[in-house]
């Protein structure tokens, strides 16, 4: 029995040292399926999540890019963030609030934030208050400055999300010459199409 116990001990130690908890997603989105089997790139990805309540959430993978983008967008909108808030922001996977509410979101402790997620109104993208495009452009510039790599734009839409919102997101990006997108989908088997 001793070798088995040794094995169990080794396993436990290994997992104790190496697990990282997955960050809590702000919103759960049920993506539609497609036959496409291209994989999402590992890094340098900006994710725009569209849920069925017409809310748009923004997220970018590297924490440093997040911090730099936060500084720049904050400067553009004249909002200040403390170092503590910036640190919290770097740990958020994505968010969907206008910049005016971002400060209070970052100040709420993690456990309470989960309840707030339901009420996040999404990032505004109407022509008068297009914060979404500012976030996207600053994140791209920040990623280029920090890592010298271009970013991929991934759109993660819920199957039941309405088409006009997604079209608006695409239009907002096209206006700034961003024409290549990746739509995140589940994998389905390719059916045979008889010619």
């Amino acid at each position, binding site marked *: 029995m001793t070798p088995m116990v040794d094995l169990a001990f080794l396993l436990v130690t290994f997992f104790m040292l190496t697990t990282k908890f997955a960050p809590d997603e702000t919103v759960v989105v049920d993506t539609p399926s497609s036959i496409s089997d291209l994989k999402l790139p590992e890094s340098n990805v900006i994710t725009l999540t569209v849920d069925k309540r017409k809310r748009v959430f923004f997220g970018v993978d590297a924490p440093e890019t997040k911090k730099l983008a936060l500084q720049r967008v904050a400067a553009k909108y004249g909002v200040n963030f403390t170092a503590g808030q910036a640190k919290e922001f770097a740990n958020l996977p994505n968010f969907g609030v206008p910049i005016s509410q971002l400060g209070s979101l970052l100040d709420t402790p993690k456990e309470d934030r989960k309840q707030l997620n339901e009420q996040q109104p999404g990032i505004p993208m109407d022509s008068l208050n297009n914060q979404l495009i500012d976030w996207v452009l600053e994140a791209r510039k920040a990623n280029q400055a920090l890592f010298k790599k271009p970013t991929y734009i991934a759109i993660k839409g819920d199957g039941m*999300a309405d088409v006009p919102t997604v079209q608006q997101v695409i239009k907002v990006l096209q206006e700034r010459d961003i024409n290549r997108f990746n739509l995140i989908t589940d994998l389905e088997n390719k059916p045979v199409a008889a010619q």
Partner: protein
Amino acid sequence: MAEIQQKADSGGGGKKRAKKMSTKIDMTPMVDLAFLLLTFFMLTTTFAKPNVMQLTMPVKEKNEEEQTKLKESEAFTIIMGEANKVYYYAGMLSPESKPELKVTDYGPNGIRQVILDRRREQPKTVILIKPDDKAVYKNMVDILDEMNITNQKKYALVKISKADQDLIKESGL
């Protein structure tokens, strides 16, 4: 590896007793195997990454003249409506001709068959995909997926026009 121990006869009664045998199996090789398997998987698994479907939109030309003109004969329009209905007609919408609107669904005998039939008739067809405001995102992804499945290379995602919406209302499909 394995051992069979025979219990010494304790000199019981005159009756013949079957000899009790106890077996001991050495578990070390099994544990070694488990350990090896585990190490192998610890070192080789990668988490499943989400799949993506690429969507490349054409660059918006500032000058209207520069955009390549689409021939009426080559165009084929697919409109995604509400409640998972797909409408289609050949050609583009123009004030003179009112094309006949037909309806189908997303199943394998629906829009896929329609696209394949159309390609057989007109190999140089260009498909215009117009999602209605009442369609859902899933419909849009499904149609783009059908483009991939049927190997349709020429297609464009365009905004639906009022004329198309009226066409659907009038046809009552």
